[in-house]
């Protein structure tokens, strides 16, 4: 699997993401500068990592969404290419129009960093094929603005089309306010676009890929992506 990790000024989890991609796929990803206008030839997967692009002093992700490289990312997605946005990457994908909705300030108005449980809603997307539907995984969140919000019509569409891939839940998979860490509508932690080839999520699967550092629950996401591209990767 040939992956490209975008680097905007202020992004800070690009090294975590690159290390995980290398660990799981065996291939070093290309680090792509925001001012570039093209993705490396043959890119299978574009990853927009976490951080605070441009300091997030404006609306989170709003400036990065307008960077030169994003036109190439939009073209890649339009051709059905895979795009994954994590945390600030999710915010950037929403701001760039590749995903619907927006990430608002956490309902408790504070930055939160701790492990959460996620229920995998479906296993038939390239991003979740490494898991079983209904499986519960434990991965960390680290964000101040992860409260997913969209208008009623959009939420209705996302839900009826089964485009929610992860929801915040209890360890046994039940949903409820105490587990919905940032107050997201319908406890949405991750979604895909209509084509199913662009995904965004707030939690950090890339930080849970080793048993000695947290857990290996995040590994399935990357292993599934690698499997998508077969051994030839």
């Amino acid at each position: 699997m040939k992956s490209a990790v975008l680097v905007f000024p202020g992004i800070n989890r690009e090294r975590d993401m690159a290390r995980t991609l290398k660990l799981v796929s065996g291939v070093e990803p290309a680090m792509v500068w925001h001012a570039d206008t093209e993705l490396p030839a043959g890119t299978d997967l574009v990853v927009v990592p976490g951080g605070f692009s441009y300091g997030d002093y404006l609306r989170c992700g709003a400036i990065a969404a307008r960077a030169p490289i994003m036109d190439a990312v939009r073209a890649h997605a339009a051709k059905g290419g895979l795009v994954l946005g994590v945390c600030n990457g999710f915010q950037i994908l929403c701001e760039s129009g590749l995903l619907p909705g927006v990430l608002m300030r956490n309902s408790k108005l504070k930055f939160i960093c701790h492990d959460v449980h996620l229920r995998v809603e479906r296993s038939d997307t390239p991003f979740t094929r490494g898991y079983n539907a209904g499986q519960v995984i434990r991965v960390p969140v680290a964000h101040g603005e992860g409260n997913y919000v969209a208008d009623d019509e959009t939420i209705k569409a996302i839900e009826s089309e089964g485009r929610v891939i992860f929801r915040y839940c209890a360890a046994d998979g039940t949903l409820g306010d105490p587990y919905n860490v940032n107050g997201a509508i319908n406890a949405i932690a991750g979604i895909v676009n209509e084509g199913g080839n662009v995904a965004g999520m707030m939690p950090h699967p890339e930080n849970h890929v080793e048993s000695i550092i947290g857990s290996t629950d995040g590994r399935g996401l990357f292993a599934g992506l690698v499997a998508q591209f077969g051994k030839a990767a």
Partner: protein
Amino acid sequence: MSVAESDKTLRNEPKITPELVAEHGLKPDEYQRILDLIGREPTLTELGIFSAMWNEHCSYKSSKVHLRGLPTEAPWVIQGPGENAGVIDIGDGLAVVFKMESHNHPSYIEPYQGATTGVGGILRDVFTMGARPIACLNAISFGDPKHPKTRHLVSGVVAGIGGYGNSFGVPTVGGQTRFHTRYNGNNLVNAMAVGLARTDSIFYAAASGVGMPIVYLGSKTGRDGIHGASMASAEFGEDSDEKRPTVQVGDPFAEKLLLEACLEIMQKDCVIAIQDMGAAGLTCSAVEMGAKGDLGVTLDLEKVPTREAGMSGYEMMLSESQERMLMVLKPEKEKEAEDIFRKWGLDFAIVGETTPTKRFLIRHNGEMLADLPIKELGDEAPVYNRPFVETPKQPVIDAKDVKHPLPVADALLKLIGTPDLCSKRWVWEQYDHIIGGNTVQRPGGDAAVVRVEEGPKGLAMTTDVTPRYCEADPFEGGKQAVAEAYRNICAVGGLPLAITDNLNFGNPERPEIMGQFVGCVRGIGAACKALDFPVVSGNVSLYNETNGRAILPTPTIGGVGVLDDFTKSMSLGFKNDGDAILLIGEKPSWLGQSIYLRDVCGREEGAPPPVELELEKRHGEFVRKLILDGQVTAAHDLSDGGLAVAIAEMAMAGSRGATLDAAPAGADAHGYWFGEDQARYVVTVKPEQVKAVVEAAQVAGVAIAQIGTVGGDTVAIAGEKPLAVSDLSQRFEAWLPEYMAGTNS
């Protein structure tokens, strides 16, 4: 240009009056020293430069003579105090660069920005030396929870520490949070940063070569923070809120860019010398680069990138705008370096050059503003051997003479929910403590453990001090702060290597405060020497007083240790039912200055527990060996709250209970369970290994005793009411969130 020539062009406007001297925080005798040094009246800019260089914060004038006594050397020390940060060798060609620094005064005036710039400043100190920061820690002290300002300060400081570190992208992995009335008008924010570099590419401040371009990098210079260091060198009165304009504003985004740009040009071998602009900004950084390199420096201020038009030279020299660096570049690499900085969108300007004259010349639009001897600016700063009186010894309190208001179990349940002992989860969950993907032991344990690059090495890090001990007996308290850092590192399996010290005290012009300082520093020195745990960097913060009331003496120790194999690090939670619980160290009974005596009996008194350094070393080495040999399943050091609190913490962390034998016959039960005797640990061991561990302890001359067994869902002390682990956890976790929400007081 000769001195005589430059004198002609120096304009003495305005006239320097005694009032102006006083406004610059200089005493009349200090001003006389300036006159003697330069042989004429200084210009206003020169007066500003002297005030910046000679204030307490920058010159260490009250502390220097005592700091000289601290042990700073060991075979693994690459750089001791005197540079931006200390550097130690951890093998494999890797160096750890670290330092702790206070941002107390600004954090009281404006808690969010004060805390952010504290974190930003210490991160800069570390990456200036060529290290990528891999962890931050902190120690924060607040006033009485009932004081009307405390909640606001906690909220702002925690949000500020998180706001900077989270955005910059460094995990904040550990720290201390405490409350005491003595911090009411003067909270403390001590921030520590730890970075990783290669031993063959450490960068220093000393300039070399004449005619080398001096380059200004980073953010633009504004009018913020002018006289910040002088503000930090004075006491507070009722008017402290009016000092808000001296606080700077942090920009973690700019700092992240500065980090990446600096590391990139260092990697491309462009840098001769580098110094961050911290306290006293351009003045201090330029003087240090020149003085350390035995060179003069000339600056042309019209070339300094400024945020607003019309800034005077005086303002530029004293601004403490954040996220700025000064560098001497290899001339042939200038273009390459500039391209890298432009790529990251940062300002890059050649603002001066090195000269052979050892003079510090400041020009602005052709006008000479200052012409000073560069070495003397630092070297000739006043040094005070201030009078001090030793703190009187407190009486030793016998546990048997203490009236105990509550049974042991009830006292334990009460203690676990007190402001000092309760869970600080509310704090550290606002800090990104996992970024980097290397956090092996997260906050909440004895020491944080972070993997070094791809392993197998790991670093163990902690911040420690027990201010109430320091107040009662500065010498023992100083020793204890170092010993506790040592213990916390041993308790996770680390080999303690070196410390950074952040010495927070009141007004040194008062002999009793100076006595606290001298006693604590002597205690720190004694412990560092006995434990092979040298001081490699540090910071002194004096004048922590409001309206004549000083803080508790708070010499915070930041300790760093190494594990050769990070996978062997040990955590404190109970792991398996049936494991034996062993107490390592002497049986406790010392209640003087204990949390129990203060928070349960309402008595804040007595002599603190004495620290036997030889025992600390022997017990620490023994525990570390047990951990590395895989013989224990959990380990925890004993400190605040004593044995009972340690056991409760292990039970809550492991979500399993324990049955415990009663206190030994003849012992005072409360003294046994809550005494804070030093050099002690609790470990758990599989039943089949107990015999071997006990024998090993006997051979090593270490006191050891089985005191109970892991299992069940209660902490059950024989003869006491059993406490459900879930009830303990509920109380442990409740206090701080409820306090911050305003629902419990």
